[in-house]
């Protein structure tokens, strides 16, 4: 087991290195850098350019160095907890992002929990009551959930709330808590607001999860050991929980691999629509204004979130299912 964990950690680190290189290339793609845009903007407005500051920034982040050296400057900063400098806000990235990273994590994590909590009972019900009205209805709802893009769902909810309650359901906390230090009241307020984006982001994932769980469970329930169990006289409930349910749990955990990127993607756009104080809206504006390091930090953070999530899911899977070969190589 230890062997496997170490191997997975090494793979994860390598993946992160490749991902960081990818992210760096992507954010460097636009022609020019923020400073050239910034200077041009200032000059067009006839304002004086603070050459000293620009020169300082240029040296600090090695913007005149070749690309691969810039990458090393950036990535070695990461290791020391220096995420770079946000040109737009004239602040270090760590100060700009503030609580956003934590709130993003809370949002994504709650969504994963929500997906599991909802998908599990519904999936089991659908599979055990195959072709019943309940099953058909839930399947249809699920398909609708799959086909409705989450940002449109967010838009519809915003619209309905505006029409019927006259309030905005955007945001992640009551206005008086914004930029305030953490208190219990603030945490509670976040919990009150959290469920709307969680439902919106989680819908598609839940629908997909229900479909897969239903299919897996149906497959398992046709296997011979189930027939054996039934002929031994096991009660239906016990039979279900004891064997097929456990088997079908496996893909449930392995699915984090496809669920997490989906949820992270969804949370970005839904946050932008509902103006949540998470990474989404700021990533969007950073990309639009070519604020390289800010955008890069967010991209890197989101990628790390998914890669780490997959690492955890792999470990869980290895613990839960002894059939999975840990050594990855030859079978002994």
């Amino acid at each position, binding site marked *: 087991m230890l062997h496997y964990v170490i191997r997975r950690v090494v793979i994860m680190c390598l*993946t992160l290195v*490749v*991902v960081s290189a*990818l*992210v760096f290339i*992507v*954010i460097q*793609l*636009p*022609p020019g850098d923020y400073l050239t845009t910034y200077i041009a903007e200032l000059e067009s407005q006839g304002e004086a350019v603070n050459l000293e500051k620009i020169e300082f920034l240029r040296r600090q982040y090695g913007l005149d160095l070749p690309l691969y050296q810039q990458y090393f400057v950036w990535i070695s900063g990461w290791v020391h907890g220096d995420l770079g400098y946000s040109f737009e806000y004239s602040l270090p990235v760590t100060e700009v992002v503030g609580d956003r990273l934590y709130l993003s994590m809370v949002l994504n994590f709650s969504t994963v929990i929500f997906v599991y909590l909802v998908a599990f009972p519904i999936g089991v019900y659908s599979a055990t009551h195959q072709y019943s009205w309940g099953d058909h209805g839930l399947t249809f709802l699920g*398909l*609708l959930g*799959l*086909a*409705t*893009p989450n*940002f*449109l769902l967010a*838009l*519809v909810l*915003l*619209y309905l709330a*505006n*029409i019927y309650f006259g309030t*905005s359901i955007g945001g992640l906390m009551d206005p008086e808590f914004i930029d305030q230090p953490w208190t219990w009241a603030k945490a509670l307020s976040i919990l009150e607001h959290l469920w709307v984006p969680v439902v919106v982001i989680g819908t598609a994932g839940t629908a997909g999860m229900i479909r897969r769980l239903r299919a897996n469970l149906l497959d398992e329930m046709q296997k011979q050991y189930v027939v054996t169990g039934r002929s031994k006289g096991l009660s239906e409930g016990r039979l279900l929980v004891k064997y097929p349910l456990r088997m079908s749990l496996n893909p449930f955990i392995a699915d984090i*691999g*496809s669920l*997490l*990127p*989906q949820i*992270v*993607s*969804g949370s*970005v*756009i839904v946050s*932008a*629509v509902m103006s949540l104080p998470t990474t989404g809206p700021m*990533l*969007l504006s950073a*990309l*639009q204004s*070519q604020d390289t390091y800010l*955008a890069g930090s*967010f*991209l890197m953070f*989101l*990628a790390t979130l*998914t*890669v780490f999530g*997959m690492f955890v899911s792999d470990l869980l899977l290895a613990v839960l299912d002894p059939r999975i070969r840990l050594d990855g190589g030859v079978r002994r």
Partner: protein
Amino acid sequence: MSDKLAHFVSDAPFDPYTIETLTPEQERVYMASRWLMMWWKFKLHKLAVVSGIVLLASYFCIIFVEVFAPYNLHTRNTDYLFAPPQSVHLIHEGEFIGPFVYPLKFKLNLDTLKREYSDDADNPQPIRFFCSGDEYEFWGLVSGSFHIMCPPKDGKMFLLGTDRLGRDMVSRLLYGGRISLTVGLLGITISFILGITVGGMAGYFGGWVDNTVQRVIEILRSLPELPLWMALSAALPVNWSPVYVYLGITIILGLLDWPGLARAVRSKLLALREEDYVTAARLMGAPPSRIIGAHLLPNFMSHLIASASLSIPSMILGETALSFLGLGLRPPVTSWGVLLAEAQNIEAVALYPWLMLPMLPVVIVVLAFNFLGDGLRDAADPYD
């Protein structure tokens, strides 16, 4: 004494198939080609057939948008900003006069600053069919003015309302479909080519090629798609012409979508390359490209088409999301996402809810592609 039976040979002509003669009906089934059998199996999936028809109709529509749309994409009716959807009536004061609309009377509500319109019920205006209306350039090539349906003479017709510049939503939805629907097709073509090439190489050569490709796929699949799409499309130069931006977006969509297909191709190839006919082809000196292209690909093309039709919706949604965020297509190019971007202002939507209408075709098309894909996937293996 010999009681042996006499040697007997029947004179009748011998037909070895007499025992199990096939009726013409059976003959048809047994001799059916693979594609024919897939079609039979596909037909059983009613929802998929309906979805297929819906999609065919939509794609047919977007070819002749200019003719179907009552107005042009950019025709502004400055007296009718934010006009509500009009309803089509048939009977006026107990008298049947065919489909017509009532003209709109405009009043600005000074309390809410909402633009309010009411029907002028005295004055029915019949809708014209097969008529000449707004001038257009068909695909930018041939000019014409023929429409299937036009607004009444000296009148206006906004069956789905107008937007903030007084542009007809029906026409804009139709024109938007042309962009949104083709983005999916172009994107899937790119992803298909990449997926087949990369997956084909990995599956056929195996070894380190396979290992490298597998790692790359794993990394790409572990990344959240949308933020990457956003970053890449933000990197498209601002001064590009709309056509380049459109192509750029489709390429970006296709670039991140191929890993799924490549994986499917690879696993199929790994199984198929051990078949005898592959060995035979190799012994006869066929190069790998021919073995993959001529012998292996046709064997699992149906599976590929099925999985491709399942990933078109994600591309359409991707384009919609990007344009909605303002990172994708930009006006004057109009897609459903660009139309939805106008619905971002929730105060405007609260007053004029028909701005959210472009949602409907998106959901319908995505659902239809999902059903069609399900049907195709079931049909892809007709020998079950």
